């Protein structure tokens, strides 16, 4: 996670709408919503949490184009330079037929790059995580929607936040320290 915080507050919700509403109101009140754990993507949550668009397409583009270029070079080198063999009287550099392999290879490497980028960007694989210590969090892959916030230092802010959350139909609220 981006910002280090000593103490975090977790609110548990029963459905995505409740979660997004809560997140919105919390942020409006000036509190810092850090992250959310949800069993499925929740529309609009990224904006509320102020997350930027994922840069994941760049590595894919670079890997794809690079692999395709290499493939074409390999074809060209092997058929024109390394082994200039007469095949059916066709030119050594029969460019139209050399286009297919680079396409296939390009797509393949774009896909692989995407997957690797996902792991890197998400810091995965990470089989253990502080959040997993809390049993209830298990349902974040099932039917519960969790909102993580930096717990305010002073008491009354803390209380205000708790009130906000319970107003926002939070089922449970819990603080845990990292």
């Amino acid at each position, binding site marked *: 996670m981006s910002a280090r915080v000593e103490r975090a507050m977790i609110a548990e919700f029963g459905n995505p709408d409740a979660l997004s509403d809560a997140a919105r109101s919390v942020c409006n009140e000036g509190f810092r919503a850090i992250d959310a754990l949800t069993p499925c993507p929740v529309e609009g949550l990224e904006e509320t949490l102020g997350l930027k668009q994922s840069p994941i397409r760049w590595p894919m583009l670079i890997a794809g184009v690079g692999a395709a270029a290499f493939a074409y070079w390999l074809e060209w080198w092997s058929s024109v330079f390394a*082994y200039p*063999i*007469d*095949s*059916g*009287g*066709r*030119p050594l550099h*029969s*460019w*139209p*037929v050399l286009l297919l392999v680079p396409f296939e290879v390009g797509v393949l490497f774009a896909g692989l790059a995407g997957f690797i980028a996902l792991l890197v960007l998400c810091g995965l694989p990470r089989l253990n995580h502080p959040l997993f210590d809390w049993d209830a969090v298990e349902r974040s892959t099932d039917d519960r929607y969790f909102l993580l916030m930096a717990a305010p230092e002073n008491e009354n802010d803390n209380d205000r936040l708790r009130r906000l959350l319970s107003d926002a139909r939070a089922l449970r609220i819990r603080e845990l320290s990292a």
Partner: protein
Amino acid sequence: MAAGAAALAAGCKRPDEEILANVTLEELPYVKIPEGLVPGVIQRYATALTLAGYGRGALVTSSEGRPIKVEGNPRHPASLGATDVFAQAEILALYDPDRSQAIRVAGEISDWPAFEQALGEHLAARVSGRGQGLRLLSGRIVSPTLLDQIEGLLKAYPNMRWHTFEPTEASDGETANVVYGKPLTLRPRFGDADVVAAFDADPLGCGPDQVRFGRELVDRRKRDRASARFYSVESGMTLTGAFADHRLAAHPDAIEAMVAALAAALGAPIARPELPQDHARFLDVVTKDLQARAGRGLVLLGPALSKNARALGVWINDRLGAPENAFDVDPRQAAAGTLPELADDIHAGKVEMLVILDSNPVATAPGDVEFGALVQRLPFRVHLGLYYDETAAASTWHLPMPHPLESWSDIASPEGVASIVQPLIRPLHESYSAHRLLAALAGEPPLSDYDRIRSTWRSRWGERNFDDRWRRALVEGVIADTGLEPAAKPAAKFPGWTPTAPQGGMSAIFRIDPSVFDGRFANNAWLQECPQPFSKAVWGNAVEMALADAKRLGIKEGDEVEVSVGKRALSGPMRLSNGIAPGVVQLSLGYGRAHAGSIGDGVGFSVAVLRTAASPWIARNVALRRIGPNGHLSPSTAGLFALPGKAEELAPEVEVGAAKASPPQPMASFFPPRPTPIGDPYAWAMVIDTGACIGCNACVVACQSENNVPSIGPDEVGWGRIMHWLRIDVYDHGSAPEPRPVFQPVPCMHCEAAPCEPVCPVEASVHDHEGLNVQVYNRCIGTRFCQSNCPYKVRRFNWFGYAAGQEYKNLGNALVKAANNPDVSVRDRGVMEKCTYCVQRISRARRLAERETRLIAEGEVVTACQAACPTRAIHFGNLVDPKSSVSELRRDPAHYVLLDQLHTRPRTTYLARLRNSNPELGGSA
């Protein structure tokens, strides 16, 4: 296997006696012996191979002491540098593991001393000093030494009798006798003939004269096509009929009537018989054409016709002043008895001992002779032969005979030109030559064959420079100033004419099989798998008849049918065959062998039972009966569906004078056009003259022998698989009843824009800089994309290890492998292969040329198919050289490219078949 390997290890040595390689007269070394044992150095030796008793000259290639290839001997009149299928296949015959390898008495292995003793005892006990009851049976014998020996034998045993039986004999001496009052052998001079009319005759059919006659006929056509015309009236479908400009299918009886009508037209004192309208029309045209060419017209009569009709033919030729030579028959041969006479004597109990020389009458004798049963009556019967065959099994003693490539002898051509039979290799197995057997019979002291042959010729030449003449004979393969002089013909007397009474039922005509001859080659896999000229059937024969008759009799192709004359009957599968005359069934000799060997046993059915001594070539009053649906028709390598209109496109015919040219339009392409040839000193190309191809298959087997192409057996062929690199397609420009076939040999086209190459993922099929489309066997992974994209379908795939561990029957034997050409790699399972233009011969020529730092000259590279072709229909050479034969022929108006519209730019191209139709018959006949 082990036995074969042992024989091979022991056998692959050159003979002890001096044998001489064939070289040109100029460099003929009188004293120096060319060294033949330098590894890789190919040495060719002149010798002669026999067929039906006559010799055909051959140059046999030997590699490290192993004979591996037969080529023709240009100096020999029966070879003229070419060969027939059988000569090609002798290599495989030499290494056949099924050859007899031991003396046997009643089937048990014995030895020579035991035989000599038994022979002596029997001679003493049964044969009075004058040879009473002793008989010698052989095929035709023209070997000077053998004839001398037999003559000597007859002197020693005055009452002994010599009988000859040649299953393929046409006995023409007899007919000439009727007309000229003395036995004469009449032989056509096609070179001098303008118009030839064949009446059920097949001069181009297989036999000792096929090569000679084929060359003469085609050369005559090449000299001046417009004045050469060939008519054929025949009952079966023959190569001659395919060669003819006009062909008519007719029943032998009808043909005899036509012959009589022709005789009448030429002034014979007989009434012109009534002819059917179309026959009359045909005959009138023929008559006119013959009369128009005084002294240049010739008629030929086939053996199936009555003796009377054939005599008429002799008379007609005499009347026409036909270009033919008459030769006196050797009195010694004329004196020999026949098989029926022998049979009668056995019946009469006049025979005690029978010695059979290299002949298999039990399998080949006419059915009415019932020789198999008859011979059993004799207490002492000796058989000498290559195989432990039917006759061997029926004999008390069997002696293994050496193959012609293993033993010394001499032989003569049909016109008496003698050759020394020179061995290239020591006998692979224990064997005894006819010379030795006859010597033993005569009780002469043993003499090696070598010395015996030399003594024969010493007696003819005298001592004076004998060795030079001997060496010369060995080197050249023919013996100078031998050969018969044409004899003067006495005045001809008209033989008279009594028409054969019209017969009911059908007639069966017997033909010599183009693949196994009379059965003596039945154990030769190359020949068994050599496609029949028209049906392309392999591995078996069939009862062949025309569609009309089959319909009438309610028989479908493949049905099992019984063919019977009275009590004698045979049964076999029926095959439809265009061009066979109505009322005629065609049967092939040579199949249904019981003791041929592992290859030939039980292939097809024997037809000997229907032949009679009186009429061996035709059986009348034949009854046909459908037995059942599945006659196990032998597989065919030809296609399954006929495509209309293909003949015109793929194998066009051109009338003399007319021209045919179709320049291909350039095709849109991403790629720049490519020059042809590519700028190398060589651009190999082949031109095949379909007009010159007589369909004899010599090229097919020659290619198989040269390139180690495996035979795969009937089951594989039945699956639609073949391995021949060169196939002969036959296209029909006529109709079902009157076919007009054109033969088209199809090797690899070696396309400049080869469709097979770009589709190969591993660069196994690539082009070389001299324009060869080469197949790199060790790169090939067997995707078979090349063959599926080859419009000519010339590629062959090893579905199994046909030559690599999964051979058919005995073909995996180590001994058979000795027949392989060491310059050609044997292909593995799962690999694609195809015609290479005999690249090994090209590279041999290149090595030679480079050693002498010069370019390969025209004619230096001769492909195997080209070398074998009797009519020189195949031309090979360098396109870069504008004066090369291929360059010349490519400018010929009749030149065409197969599937030109595909823009594959083949290096193999064709000349359309030229026809010289008689306008009065139109294109129809």
